[in-house]
């Protein structure tokens, strides 16, 4: 660098010497200019008074947009909380959904979203070189904190993905419970893989396979847009397929909302067991009353079942952990360094073939294969470590899902399963008790006749 500057000064002082001599001088003495620029040709000595045009490169302030995004997020979360817990009507939820799709989706292009922020937070926890922006952390934390206090109000009408699916939903064809439970494991598997790939600094899977971003940006990967449109068509007939069976952040929110401080309830009044909420729910989150009367099985069989699961769950956990750990070499192929080592080894074995751009860049940067091998070994050991824990999480979730299929809980009335409820608010308009409360805010406990529900615009859905 110093040499380069000195030469420029010399060049100016020499002034009128012809360009050829100057270029010879420069070529002899100065091979290095800033940032790898070569000076094969000297800087011209203009005589006509030519001025270098001043080019300016504007950097848009991401700070301002970041804070606007966080404010909109907070505002919509508060609106949703108010609509779900205090007002118990769907209209503000629809407005919030439309705003979210419009602002976070189409206007802001879907980045950064809370679902994807999981990866940034995970990366920040292990990579000391990564500097996490505060908005990303808030996008990760705010919905979780709201879920802890008020349930999944974020899913209801703040998340643009959920809102988009909710706005197109017309019918709710039911998926059988065991199938829904089995599909419900997918978000956890997705989450595990996401964490494994983010923690090993390989890829952001959620961003890579985001089905709706192409729709929001009106362009993108063809396959993913087809997938997104297919999900939306599915969402017309059954509620929110992405939220229920894919969304890894939804898995986290469902876990937190299961123990939320304030539960989502359809009405403050007594349930009349009219079933209307059950048929209105697009995500099948309403559990019918269950008496649990009469022993259906003998004591020994239930004890046997407890023993079976006490054995099965640890076995599944450890089994899946070691299974995923043993997959580390295959999984790590998606890492750039591992892929590069493969390409370099291949080109060494086939020296007469044309090297790929990756191999060219590898040699141009003066890296050695030993150094690359060391970094690949590190990646492999990372994959084994996080693969083990990711596998353990998957195994545990599968085990607990199996266990939950065998238990039945006593319920006197229709009840919302807080983990599955996405706070879309459809049941609010179907509950005759809630509608009566809305009509008469004094809070009379009189049971309205069922004809009150005929005023609702949508017809109760079918069941298959």
């Amino acid at each position, binding site marked *: 660098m110093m040499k380069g500057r000195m030469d420029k000064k010399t060049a100016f002082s020499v002034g009128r010497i012809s360009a050829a001599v100057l270029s010879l001088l420069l070529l002899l003495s100065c091979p290095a*200019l800033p*940032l*790898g*620029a*070569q*000076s*094969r*040709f*000297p*800087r*011209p000595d*203009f*005589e*006509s008074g*030519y001025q*270098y045009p001043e*080019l300016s*490169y*504007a*950097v*848009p302030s*991401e700070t301002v947009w970041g804070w606007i995004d966080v404010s909109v997020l907070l505002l919509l979360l508060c609106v949703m909380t108010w609509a779900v817990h205090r007002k118990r009507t769907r209209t503000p939820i629809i407005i919030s959904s439309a705003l979210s799709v419009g602002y976070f989706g189409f206007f802001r*292009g879907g*980045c*950064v979203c809370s679902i994807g922020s999981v*990866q940034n*937070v995970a990366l920040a*926890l292990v990579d*000391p070189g*990564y*500097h*996490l*922006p*505060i908005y990303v*952390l808030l996008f*990760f*934390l705010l919905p*979780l*904190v709201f879920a*802890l206090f008020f349930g999944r109000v974020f899913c209801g009408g703040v998340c643009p993905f959920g809102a988009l699916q909710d706005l197109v939903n017309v019918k709710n064809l039911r998926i059988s419970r065991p199938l829904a439970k089995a599909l419900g494991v997918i978000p956890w598997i997705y989450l595990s893989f996401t964490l494994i790939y983010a923690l090993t600094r390989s890829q*952001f899977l959620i*961003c*890579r396979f985001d089905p709706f*971003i192409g729709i929001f*940006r009106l*362009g993108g990967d063809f396959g993913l847009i087809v997938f997104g449109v297919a999900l939306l068509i599915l969402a017309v007939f059954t509620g929110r397929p992405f939220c229920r069976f894919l969304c890894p952040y939804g898995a986290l929110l469902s*876990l937190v909302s*299961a*123990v939320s*401080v304030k539960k989502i309830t359809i009405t403050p009044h007594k349930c009349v067991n009219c079933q209307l909420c059950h048929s209105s729910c697009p995500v099948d989150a309403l559990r019918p009353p269950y008496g649990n009367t009469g022993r259906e099985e003998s004591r020994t069989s239930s004890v046997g079942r407890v023993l079976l699961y006490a054995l099965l769950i640890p076995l599944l956990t450890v089994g899946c952990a070691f299974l995923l750990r043993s997959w580390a070499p295959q999984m790590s192929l998606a890492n*750039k360094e591992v892929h590069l080592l493969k390409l370099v080894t291949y080109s060494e074995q086939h020296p007469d073939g044309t090297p*790929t*751009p*990756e191999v060219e*860049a590898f040699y*141009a940067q003066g890296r050695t294969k030993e150094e690359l091998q060391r970094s690949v070994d590190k990646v492999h050991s990372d994959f084994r470590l996080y693969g083990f824990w990711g596998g353990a999480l998957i195994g545990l979730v599968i085990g607990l899902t199996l266990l*939950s299929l065998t*238990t039945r809980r*006593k319920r006197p009335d229709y009840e919302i399963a807080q*983990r599955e409820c996405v706070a879309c608010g459809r049941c609010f308009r179907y509950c005759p008790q809630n509608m009566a409360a809305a009509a008469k805010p004094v809070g009379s406990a009189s049971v309205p006749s069922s004809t009150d529900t005929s005023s609702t615009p949508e017809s109760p859905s079918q069941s298959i």
Partner: protein
Amino acid sequence: MKEKKDDNGNIGSAPIRRREFLRRVGTYLAGGGVLAVGGAAATKVKGKDEAHLYWQIDPSKCIQCGRCETSCVMGVSAVKCVHALRVCGYCDLCGGYYRTGAKVLDTASENMICPTGAIKRKFVEDPYFEYTIDEALCTGCGKCVKGCSSFGNGSLFLQVKQELCLRCNECKISLECPSGAITRVSAPLAYRLKDKA
């Protein structure tokens, strides 16, 4: 995972009381978990001048493979060629303007490197020519950059134009960049200009 317990393991004689207790334990555990993760991540939060918000190309690593043009999620890539005029030699026979082995040095498209005619040339004084980039036409293919680095001073180079970039959470070009030249950088490094180094 403890929070799950209250959902599954409570069939008993006094279900409500035990369920309520387990639920409360679960709430505290979940709250503790959120606090712990949030707190740990909060220590990694940096101010606006340090947080990694922008994607940018390191010109010293770029090998002009041409993937910037095709990998970007936008219809026309946010990567554009920029020109460091203070590094440029203002040559008549420009390696980034004319195709190698061009028979006639005119603006016929078979003689030009740029496939979209985005490089504009203006006579300054004998024998110097000024070259500028019309960004509306540039697709970020890097063909001129390759020519300029091979035969000239390397004053043409690729940069992510920050006013065009959508700032995806993970840049798709960075995934496909063969030399790892695209990284996430802080605001003061949002442009890596050759004439300002």
